[in-house]
């Protein structure tokens, strides 16, 4: 009876709350469902373009003069399908995430729009359509990055992203305008007339696209927006950006430079290889010392895009020397890496998002102990981390294996360039895998295992079913890449056949149960390794049973606390301390700013009252390269400012002068 009395005054408020919650739920389901549906459509369209006839669509009235042209071949279909698959997982996840994080209506509307824009980019069949779709994608993602714009960090990241993405767009715009001046508007027309394009134009287009697409793919030194924008964006958006949008940069390289303009000269491949390997090593190094979970994942994106670009460069270089078979192997590696990276990075960001939603924390130094509180999310992040570390049973393993094989087995003959470039690239890839393991062990071990390092982490609760379902889809994709890449064999074969300039006419590696390489006595069976490993671990568990009947009953005992009463969670290693040795080893590259301050007791110099340790790990490339540019632009702007002091007379004089100049030129 008392409960009824207590309830009665609050009932209308509850009712109101319930209605709001129901409305929010409906909106979340609508937005997430639409995103997932777009993803399904994209995947289906992409697959039909890969295996069926190329699709062609022209909507003349949509744009004046040229119209909008869509032209979906196997290559575009590949990227459309990959983007679609990522969107399915993200869409389902967003249903739960948007409710939990109380998304406003604006991001809910923008999420499906962003996916639609991304699906349009690889489908574009002409320069104008491509640029339109590209700008739509950039604008939609920018708006989504800014969805939590009441935080200062988000606004700063948004400004950074806006400037860099628009500069990148300007470079692409310029490149494509130059290209279309030489060949026409539709990609098909340009491709048919590549013979008439001078080598100077080719070089200009390549360099400009390297800048524009490189900045979208997050390659060094144009990567700086990535570790800023990806952590600050809402997690489903980070997943879309990191797993799907950055791929568009790679698509641009392949489509414009390799498919339409190719085959390129030697130095194109060489340039791609250098940018790729530097990005891979730098990205993984930053990832291995960063303590922000989402920043770590963002740097890992730079690393993986670097590896993909390295594979593209290898294919281009080898193809330009006529080694088509190995080039086909490198290209297959690039395509496989794109897909597997999309799978494990989607999963990684979604899992990081459910940690963020449950604890409000991204800082690994404050997380921990999630394995007991969020077992589902922990398993998901574990699968993603295994994939990112490139170990067997992980999604990234097969792609990296193919890349290494193509580097090792490139025929070099007497060519000094190849004989020098290939070992150095192997070194870069090897260093990347080694450090990648350290980065991922840190992310998983410090963030999810051990004991919670803050009250927020202690109070974490498991994510709702829709978020777990979205993650499970991505995890299933990771598992397929890890043990049965054979399923993707037909897709890769079709796409490779559409890329004659990078080994497409040679037989690529056979992705059967055993991966076999043409012309090389090397093979690998990831599925068989997985099965054998499970058997071997069971065997080892059996070994552990030896002597079991002599044992007393098992007990649970406290951890050894060096004789003290109990361990506080402050005594654990944190992400910072875990990465400290690596930070010291790579001191020269990372250039950390460390500050140790020891305060002594006033009574004695020998007794320490407190020690303050501060370390700041800024991105050295950003500091060295960006700061001078920003300074120069600012001082230039100050100088230009003198020209408009506010006097109307002066402005009228400018107008007259401008008109005169135009008249003189136009005469």
């Amino acid at each position, binding site marked *: 009876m008392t409960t009824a009395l207590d309830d009665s005054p609050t009932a209308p408020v509850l009712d109101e709350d319930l209605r709001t919650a129901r409305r929010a739920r409906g909106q979340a389901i609508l937005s997430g469902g639409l995103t997932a549906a777009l993803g399904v459509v994209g995947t289906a369209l992409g697959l039909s373009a890969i295996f069926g006839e190329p699709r062609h669509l022209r909507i003349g009235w949509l744009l004046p003069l040229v119209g909008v042209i869509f032209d979906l071949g196997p290559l575009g279909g590949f990227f459309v399908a990959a983007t679609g698959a990522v969107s399915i997982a993200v869409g389902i996840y967003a249903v739960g995430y948007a409710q939990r994080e109380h998304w406003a209506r604006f991001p809910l509307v923008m999420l499906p729009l962003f996916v639609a824009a991304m699906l349009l980019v690889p489908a574009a069949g002409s320069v104008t359509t491509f640029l339109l779709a590209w700008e739509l994608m950039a604008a939609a993602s920018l708006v989504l990055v800014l969805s939590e714009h009441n935080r200062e960090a988000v606004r700063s990241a948004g400004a950074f992203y806006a400037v860099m993405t628009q500069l990148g767009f300007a470079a692409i715009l310029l490149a494509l305008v130059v290209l279309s001046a030489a060949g026409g508007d539709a990609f098909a027309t340009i491709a048919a007339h590549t013979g008439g394009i001078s080598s100077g134009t080719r070089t200009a287009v390549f360099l400009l696209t390297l800048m524009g697409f490189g900045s979208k793919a997050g390659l060094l030194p144009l990567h700086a927006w990535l570790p800023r924008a990806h952590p600050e964006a809402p997690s489903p958006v980070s997943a879309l950006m990191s797993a799907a949008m950055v791929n568009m940069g790679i698509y641009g390289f392949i489509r414009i430079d390799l498919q339409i303009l190719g085959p390129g000269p030697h130095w194109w491949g060489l340039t791609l290889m250098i940018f790729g390997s530097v990005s891979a090593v730098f990205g993984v190094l930053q990832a291995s010392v960063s303590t922000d979970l989402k920043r770590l994942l963002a740097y890992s994106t730079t690393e993986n895009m670097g590896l993909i670009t390295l594979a593209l460069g290898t294919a281009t270089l080898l193809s330009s020397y006529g080694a088509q078979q190995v080039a086909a192997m490198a290209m297959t590696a690039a395509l496989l890496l794109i897909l597997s990276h999309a799978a494990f990075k989607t999963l990684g960001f979604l899992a990081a998002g459910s940690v963020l939603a449950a604890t409000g924390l991204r800082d690994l130094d404050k997380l921990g102990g999630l394995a007991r509180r969020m077992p589902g999310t922990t398993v998901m992040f574990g699968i993603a981390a295994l994939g990112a570390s490139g170990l067997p049973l992980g999604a990234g393993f097969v792609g990296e294996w193919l890349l290494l094989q193509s580097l090792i087995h490139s025929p070099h003959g007497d060519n000094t360039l190849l004989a020098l470039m290939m070992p150095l690239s192997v*070194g870069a890839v090897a260093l990347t895998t080694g450090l990648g393991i350290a980065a991922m*062990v840190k992310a998983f071990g410090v963030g999810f*295992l051990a004991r919670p390092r803050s009250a927020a982490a202690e109070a974490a609760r498991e994510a709702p079913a829709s978020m777990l379902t979205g993650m499970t889809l991505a995890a299933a994709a990771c598992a397929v890449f890890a043990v049965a890449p054979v399923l993707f064999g037909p897709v890769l074969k079709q796409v490779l056949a559409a890329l004659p300039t990078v080994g497409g006419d040679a037989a690529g590696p056979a992705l059967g149960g055993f991966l076999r390489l043409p012309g090389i006595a*090397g*093979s690998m069976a990831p599925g068989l390794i997985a099965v054998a490993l499970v058997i071997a671990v069971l065997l*080892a568990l059996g070994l552990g049973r030896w002597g079991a009947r002599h044992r007393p009953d098992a007990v649970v*005992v406290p951890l050894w606390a060096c004789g003290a009463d109990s*361990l506080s969670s402050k005594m654990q290693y944190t992400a910072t*301390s875990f990465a400290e040795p690596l930070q010291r080893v790579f001191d020269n590259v990372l250039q950390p700013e460390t500050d140790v301050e020891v305060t002594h007791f006033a009574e004695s110099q020998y007794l320490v009252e407190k020690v303050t340790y501060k370390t700041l790990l800024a991105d050295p490339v950003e500091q060295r390269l960006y700061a001078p540019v920003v300074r120069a632009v600012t001082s230039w702007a100050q100088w230009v400012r003198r020209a408009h002091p506010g006097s109307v007379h002066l402005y009228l004089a400018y107008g007259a002068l401008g008109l005169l100049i135009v008249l003189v030129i136009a005469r």
Partner: protein
Amino acid sequence: MSSTTGLSVLSVVATALQVLAVLAGAPLVVGGMRQVRARLEGRAGGGIGQPWRDLRKQMRKQQITPQGTTVVFGLAPAVVAGSTLLIAAIVPLIALGSPLDPAADLFGVVGLLFLGTVALTLAGLDTGTAFGGMGSSREITIAALVEPTILLAVFALSVPGHSANLAAIVSATANHPGQLVSPGSLLAFVALAIVVTAEAGRLPVDNPSTHLELTMIHEAMVLEYAGPKLALVEWASGMRLTVMLALVANLFLPWGIAGAQPSVLAVPIGLVAITVKVAALAGVLATCEVFLAKLRYFRIPELLAGSFLLALLAVTASYFFATPTN
């Protein structure tokens, strides 16, 4: 038994024998190394069989689960031991034609090796103690620097054989022994020797018999293990050492190993050959350890960077001096 698949009953037997030999021999290798060391230092030593007796004692103790640890801590010893057993089944130790040889090349084997390292590192972090984290952090730093070197050295060796599959590398060396004295091969040997000592946690990188937590690497990481789980961890680390020594032995001294289609006599000869080779290598390693002091932790990366450079030179040299593919 078609000759194309190269799978015969005897090669399956040889593979099973490899796994059993590693299982049974690993504690003996560890015991032998301790004995050599003890004798050189003027002590009597516990005898070669002491690790086996320790294992039996540990296996009969109570199972203990530290509070707050998860399944990661519980499963890690089995993952290390299991991955090492799988490696023992893949690599050519007694005979060349392991049925699993086409399933994983050297990149796969190195990956499996590091899967074990990662499992133990995560277990160290899972305990949530200062020492566990300390050991894990140090171990993963060393592993991150060791892996690139192993991959590079291994690929330097795979260039002459035009394959990264182990059987192909070993038989290429056996057929063309002249390759062993090529600059690429020699550089790769030195680089591999350094990283194997690092990865197996031997001096001068890590002291397996240390009792001072602050200097520990591997031992700090597994500090919370006791009883049967500790036994499994120690057994596994012995097996890792044995497999790595045997692999190095066969990569650089492939003689005595049975072929892909072994005869009944070749299998026991292969077993004897690999036993002698591993015993000799272990003896040399133990003797060297007597004269070495443990390096300060932050000097280790310098050593590993040196070996990375050697391995890079090895790959480059093998590229420059390699015979053309066709």
